[in-house]
C-alpha cells in the first residue's frame, strides 16, 4: 500500500455517466484542473442519440418537432424542472461544445436545423431526438422520404431483427425489405455481440467482406440500414467507406444497449479527457469527504494499492439515479448516497409507482431527486445551498422524468454546463456572460 502525495484540483467530479463526463469536458475546456472518479461503465448504456426534449406535457404525450418551443412550455409550466434554471443560449452552447469535443475525437454528430429529427429504432418504433451521430444521419431522410431501403440482419446478433422493423413499419414504409448476412470475417459461431462486430469492422478488409455479403441483396435500394456495428474508433469513416463500396447511403439503427454507440462515446470521452489532462484514477473507493473552512473539500480515496487525499475547491455530484447508485432506497425512503442530501420524494412507497407501467402520467419515483438553487447547488429542506461549492448535475436532479420527456442527455449536458459556469462565476466573481466566448475559442 503506497501513500500518494496529496493532489489539489479545482473541480472534483463524482460520476462517469454523460453528466459527469460532460462536466469534466466543460471544466477542462475552461482551464480548470479536474479530477474525476466513477464506477462501472454507465455510458455503454447510452443509445448514441442525444435527446434534448421531445414530449411535454408527458401525460398528454405531446411531441414537439421544435425542442426550443417545448423548452418554453417546460419553463412556463414547471418552474422546478431542471431546465427552468437554464437559458436557451446556454443549452445550445452546451450541445455545441460537446459536439465539437466528440467530433475532435472522431465522433461527429449532427443537429438538423435546430430541430428534433425522427428515426427508426430496432424494434420498429419511430423516435425523435436532437443530436444524432453521423453514422445514423441518413436514417432521417430515409424515413422522411420513405427511401427504398434494405435492412440487414447479421446472423447471431440477437438485439436486432430486420423482419421486426419491416413488419412493424410495413403500412407506413412499404419500400423496406430485409436480408440476413453472415459475413466471412466473423469467425465467431453462435451469439454475436454488436460490440464485437463493431471492433472487427474498424478494419477495412472486414468491411469489404460485409459489403460483399450485402451487395447481392441490393436491388434498386437507395439505402442500407444496419445494426450499430460500423466500427468503434472511426464509425463515420467506416460508414462513408461502406457507402462508397455499396454505392448507396448507409445508416445505423439504434438498438438495445449495451452496444457500439455507447462504447464509442465512453472511449471518445476517456480519450479526450486524458488528452486534456483530467485526472481519472481508476478503481478507487471514496472513503470520506471533509468540507474545509474555506468552502473547499478534502477527499480521501483508496484502492487496493494506494491511498490518496484530494483537495478540491469544488465538487460536482453527477452520480445518477438508482442505476448509478446516486440514489438508494430501502422499503421506505429514498436517500442520496454520498452526502445524504435531502431527496424530494413521495410520501410513502405506495406512491412510488402507479398501477400500470405505461400510465401516461409517468411514475412519481422518477421525479424524485435532489433540488438545487439557481447556481445548480443542492439545497436543504429550507431551500438553502448545503455547501457553497457543491453542485449537482444529470439525472439525480428532481422534478424531471427523462424517460418520458426524452430529455436525459439534454438535462445532463445543460446541468453540467451550468454547474461549471456557476463554479467559475462564484470562484472568480466574474459574471458568466463575459467568459463564454473566451472559453469557446480556447
Amino acid at each position, binding site marked *: 500500500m503506497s501513500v500518494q502525495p496529496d493532489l489539489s484540483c479545482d473541480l472534483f467530479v463524482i460520476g462517469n455517466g454523460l453528466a459527469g463526463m460532460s462536466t469534466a469536458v466543460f471544466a477542462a475546456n475552461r482551464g480548470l484542473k479536474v479530477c474525476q472518479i466513477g464506477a462501472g461503465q454507465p455510458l455503454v*448504456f447510452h*443509445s448514441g*442519440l442525444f*435527446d434534448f426534449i421531445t*414530449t411535454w406535457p408527458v401525460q398528454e*404525450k405531446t*411531441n414537439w418537432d421544435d425542442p426550443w418551443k417545448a423548452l418554453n412550455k417546460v419553463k412556463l409550466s414547471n418552474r422546478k424542472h431542471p431546465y427552468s434554471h437554464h437559458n436557451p443560449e446556454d443549452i445550445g452552447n452546451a450541445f455545441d461544445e460537446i459536439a465539437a469535443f466528440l467530433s475532435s475525437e472522431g465522433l461527429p454528430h449532427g443537429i438538423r436545423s435546430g430541430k428534433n429529427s425522427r428515426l427508426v*429504432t*430496432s*424494434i*420498429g*418504433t*419511430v*423516435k425523435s431526438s436532437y443530436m444524432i451521430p453521423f453514422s445514423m444521419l441518413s436514417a432521417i431522410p430515409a424515413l422522411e422520404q420513405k427511401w427504398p431501403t434494405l435492412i440487414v*440482419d447479421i446472423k*447471431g446478433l*440477437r*438485439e*436486432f*431483427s430486420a*423482419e*421486426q422493423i419491416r*413488419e*412493424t413499419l*410495413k*403500412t407506413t414504409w412499404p419500400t423496406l425489405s430485409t436480408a440476413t448476412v453472415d459475413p466471412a470475417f466473423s469467425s465467431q*459461431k*453462435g*451469439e454475436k455481440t454488436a460490440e464485437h462486430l463493431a471492433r472487427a469492422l474498424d478494419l477495412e478488409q472486414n468491411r469489404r467482406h460485409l459489403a460483399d455479403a450485402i451487395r447481392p441483396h441490393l436491388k434498386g435500394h437507395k439505402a442500407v440500414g444496419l445494426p450499430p456495428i460500423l466500427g468503434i474508433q472511426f464509425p463515420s469513416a467506416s460508414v462513408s467507406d461502406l457507402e462508397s463500396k455499396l454505392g448507396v447511403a448507409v445508416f445505423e439503427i*439504434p438498438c*438495445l*444497449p449495451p452496444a457500439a454507440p455507447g462504447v464509442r462515446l465512453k472511449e471518445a470521452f476517456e480519450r479526450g479527457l486524458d488528452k486534456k489532462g483530467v485526472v481519472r484514477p481508476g478503481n478507487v473507493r471514496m472513503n470520506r469527504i471533509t468540507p474545509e473552512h474555506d468552502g473547499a473539500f478534502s477527499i480521501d480515496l483508496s484502492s487496493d494499492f494506494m491511498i490518496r487525499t484530494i483537495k478540491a475547491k469544488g465538487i460536482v455530484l453527477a452520480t445518477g*439515479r*438508482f*442505476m448509478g*447508485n446516486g*440514489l*438508494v*432506497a*430501502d*422499503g421506505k425512503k429514498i436517500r442520496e448516497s454520498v452526502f445524504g442530501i435531502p431527496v424530494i420524494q413521495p410520501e*410513502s*412507497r*405506495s406512491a*412510488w*409507482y402507479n*398501477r*400500470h*407501467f*405505461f400510465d*401516461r402520467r409517468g*411514475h412519481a*419515483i*422518477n421525479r424524485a431527486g435532489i433540488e438545487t438553487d439557481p447556481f445548480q447547488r443542492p439545497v436543504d429542506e429550507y431551500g438553502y445551498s448545503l455547501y457553497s461549492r457543491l453542485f449537482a448535475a444529470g439525472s439525480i436532479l428532481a422534478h424531471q422524468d*427523462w*424517460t*418520458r420527456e*426524452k430529455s*436525459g442527455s439534454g438535462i445532463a449536458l445543460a446541468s453540467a454546463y451550468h454547474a461549471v459556469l456557476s463554479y467559475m462565476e462564484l470562484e472568480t466573481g466574474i459574471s458568466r456572460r463575459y467568459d463564454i466566448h473566451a472559453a469557446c475559442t480556447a
Partner: protein
Amino acid sequence: MNKRIRTQVLVVGGGATGASVLWDLSLRGIKAVLVERKDMNSGASGANHGLLHSGARYVAGDAHAAAECREESEILKRTAARYVEYTGGLFVAVKGDDERYISDFKHFCSKVNISADELTPAQARELEPSLSGDIIAAYRVPDASIDPFGLSLSMMTQSASTGAEIFFQSRIRSFVVKNGRIVSTTVENSATGETLDIEADVVVNASGAWAAEVAGLAGVSLPMTYSKGTLLVTAERVARHVVNRLRPPSDADIIVPGGTVSIVGTTSVRIDHPDETMPTVHETDRIIEESRVLMPRLQTERYIRAYSGVRPLAGVSGNQGDRCISRGFALLDHGCDGVSNLVTITGGKLTTCRLMAEKTTDLVCGHLGISAECRTRTTPLADLSQCGWTTPGASASNWLRKKAPKDLILCECEMISTDIVDELSQSLEENDGQVSLVSLGQRSRLGKGPCQGAFCVFRVTGHLYRNRFLKGKNGLTQMKAFAESRFKGIRTVLMGPSLAQAELQEAFQCGLFNLEQQ
C-alpha cells in the same frame, strides 16, 4: 349459424382441477372438451404456493383434510414425480409461539399417520442455516414442492393426445337450459370474437373462484366468498426445505423452494370479486415483517416479484376466519337446483386436485350411466420436454444437456434459447393458441429471472418476427402487454437494488423505444 361440436363431457376451467378432471375422463375413455377463458393455470393454479402438503399444516384444525393431503401427496410423488421436488419440510416455532400447539403437534401428526421427527434447534439450523437463532422447537415432515404449470400442462397434453379437445381464450357466454338440462353451451373466443356451441351430456364447472359466476349462467345460485392471498418470490433460493411456522395457520408462515427461487407467503384478505388480484405494498410489507421472524435474511432479501391468487370459499364462513373453513373442496350436483347435468367442483387444494377429479368423475359416470374405474391413482404422467421449461433453473440444465450449435441463448438469466422459444411457439400455434409473449411466459421462465425481462423480451420478440410467429405491429402490443403483466408482479417489491433494474427497463422501453407512446 355458430360452429357446433358434440361431446360427452364439457369441462369449464383450465386450472389444475379442470386438467385433472380431463385427465381422469380421458383415462376412463370418456370423450371430453375443456374450455378455459384465458390460458392454462391463469387462476389460482398459477398463483399459489406450490406446496405439496404432507398434511401436517392441517393436523390440529382439520384432521380429515390432513389425511387427504397425506394420501394425495404420496400419490402425486409417484405419478407426477417429474414435477415434484422432494424437499422435505420443517415446522419450526420461535420464542413466543404457542407452547400448547407445539407440544400437541407430534401427537396430532401421529393420529393421521404423518411422520414428524423431532429436531433440536441446532439440528434444524444445521439443515437450514438461514433459520432464526430464536427457534425453540422443530419437526421434520414429508412436505414437498410441486410445479403446477408442468402438472397441468402434462395432464392436458396427454389428454389431448388421446382425443380430448382443449380451447383456450374461450369463455363460457351462456347455457341453453331446457327441461332442467343444459342442452348446449356457447363459448366465445376472446381473441377472434368467434363463438362455438358445445353440446355435452354433462357439464363440469371447474372454474375455481369463478364457479358462482359460471353456475349463475345456468340459473343456479352458489353462495361464495373470496379470499386473496399474496406471495413474494425471492431472487435466490433461501432454503432447501419447505419451512413452516409451527403455529395455527396465519399470515406469511410458509417458505417454499421452487427450483432456484423461494416463495414466501401468504396473506389472507377478503375481497368482493375474484378478479381483484393486484398485490399491494401493504401486503408485501406485511409478509416481509412476519416471515423474517422465521428467517431474518428475508428482511433484506431481494424480491423479484409478488403475485396474488384467490381462494374460493364455497358457502359463507363463520366467525373463525377464512383460513379455518377454506381447505376442503365442494362437489355439488346441481340436480337439486333444477339443472340435472351440471356439476360444480371448487375449493380444495392443488395437492388434492387428483382426488377432487376422481370424485367428480365418479359422479359424472353415474350421470352417464357408465361404470369405469378411476386410473389416475396409478397411471404416471409422461415427462413432456416442453413442460419442463416452467421450473426455475430447469431450462438451464436442459439447455446444457442438448445444446445444438445453432441454438442461441435469448434469455441469459433463465437460459432460454431459440430452440425452446421455437418449440413452445410451434406447440402454441398447433393447439390453436396464439403465440404471444404472455403465453410464452406462462410456459417458460421468460422474464422471471433477475433482469425481469429487460433484455430478453426484446430478443425474444425479434426472434419471433424472424421466424414469422409475429406479424405487423403485433410485437409492440405484445411487448407492452408483457411489460404490463410483469409490472403487476414487481410493482410492490421494487425497493433496494431492484430499483436499478426497474430504471434500466424504463430507460429502454420508454426512454429509447418510446413504447409508452405506441
